[in-house]
């Protein structure tokens, strides 16, 4: 099982959401995807997308304005 990192720091709508989806499409079942970014609306929207696709949200953290979301496919 691989751990995939997606860097969306300083990217704005809709790039973080789209890059997350691209990474999820490429990943295999069981892989963990970690997305990091600064766009605040995406911090709420990426978990929404994760839930609507029925995937597992492992955690959300934020430090110094940079959030990090971990997802298991």
């Amino acid at each position: 099982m691989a751990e995939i990192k997606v860097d969306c720091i300083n990217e704005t709508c809709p790039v973080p959401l789209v890059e997350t989806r691209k990474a999820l499409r490429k990943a295999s079942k069981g892989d963990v995807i970690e997305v990091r970014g600064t766009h605040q609306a995406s911090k709420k929207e990426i978990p929404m997308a994760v839930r609507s696709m029925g995937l597992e949200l492992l955690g959300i953290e934020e430090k110094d304005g940079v959030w990090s979301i971990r997802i298991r496919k």
Partner: protein
Amino acid sequence: MNKKATLIVHSGDLDKVYSAFIIGLGALSMGMYVSMYFTFWGLERLKKGKLDSAPLSRMNMFGLGRWMIRRKTKRAGVASLDKMLKGFVGLGGKILACDMTMEIMGIKKENLRSDVINDYCGVGTYIKEAMESDITLFI
């Protein structure tokens, strides 16, 4: 089964085409199937090299408004239309061209971006897809 969104892109204005692609990409990212039907002025944007050579729907001011918006989107780090189109196709979004518009406006297939267009079709295809859709928009 995945949910589905169907968008008609009737407008060719830069701001409206931006809206269409942002919504289309957002829906794909949320795990939906998405089809975008380009018709009338929207289809002009699928001509080779014409994707972002469009005026604004309001306050265009002979191109000054457009120039200002472009500068601001660049500064805000918003992705270009070209990048959005590539992302849309890359995520499996479907692009459909209205064949009646092609006939009326005299647009030939060879003048269109056949590299991104999945099919050339009429209103029947749209209605069939719209019937199965959870979201449908006319932009």
